[in-house]
């Protein structure tokens, strides 16, 4: 399941929902991404997140389906905010429930790596010196490449 929203969310409540929905699961893993108060020594007053909603729903929905198949998940949830987000607030939440821990950890890791480089969001940091767009780091592409099909064999 995926939710794209401008409103803040409560990661603890979302985790409880996933746990409650995942009957029979032996493991639930989750990740919550927060807006950093500073990047490379520049303070961040607000993070603006542009989003192509229609495509994002389609792309993330596809990756959630892939994760469910690949890691035999019993339940998966991705919540991603867009719009203006304050430092310290949560921007993304990913949770996966599976029979055992490794599948749950891997599924969350996989989904986050995909979101970082393949989901149509664009971040602009606003600070005292103005705003600038952030592009994925080389490490993000490197992380995403870990899930290429050859790794699955």
């Amino acid at each position, binding site marked *: 399941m995926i939710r794209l929203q401008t409103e803040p969310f409560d990661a603890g409540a979302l985790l409880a929902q996933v746990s409650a929905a995942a009957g029979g699961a032996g493991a639930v893993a989750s990740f919550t*991404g927060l807006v950093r108060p500073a990047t490379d020594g520049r303070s961040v007053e607000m993070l603006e997140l*542009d989003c*192509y909603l*229609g*495509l*994002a729903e*389609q792309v993330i929905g596809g990756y959630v389906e892939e994760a469910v198949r690949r890691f035999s998940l019993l339940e998966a949830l991705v919540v*991603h905010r867009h719009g203006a987000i304050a430092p310290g607030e949560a*921007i*993304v939440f990913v949770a996966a429930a599976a029979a055992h821990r490794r599948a749950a950890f891997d599924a969350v890791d996989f989904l*986050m790596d995909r*979101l*970082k*480089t*393949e*989901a*149509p*969001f*664009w*971040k*602009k940091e606003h600070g005292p010196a103005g705003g600038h*767009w*952030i*592009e*994925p780091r080389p490490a*993000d592409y490197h992380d995403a490449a870990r899930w290429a099909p050859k790794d699955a064999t």
Partner: protein
Amino acid sequence: VARVLLFGRFADAAGWREREVEAPRLSELTHALGEADDLLGEALARPGLQVAVNQAIVRGDAELGPADEVAYLPPMSGG
């Protein structure tokens, strides 16, 4: 007439997010956008551009039909 959508730094460069533009092919549309606006042309020439037609990523050129939605996407960075 294609419905053109700009996101991220492309929308900033152009000063608009959505506009209708007449063009028979994607390559001609991209060329026309750059010709009409130097800042947008420079932004679109940066590495990592992806284009989606009707919410599907297109590689290479494509014919455009009436009411097609063409989105210009800078390198994506969610999460």
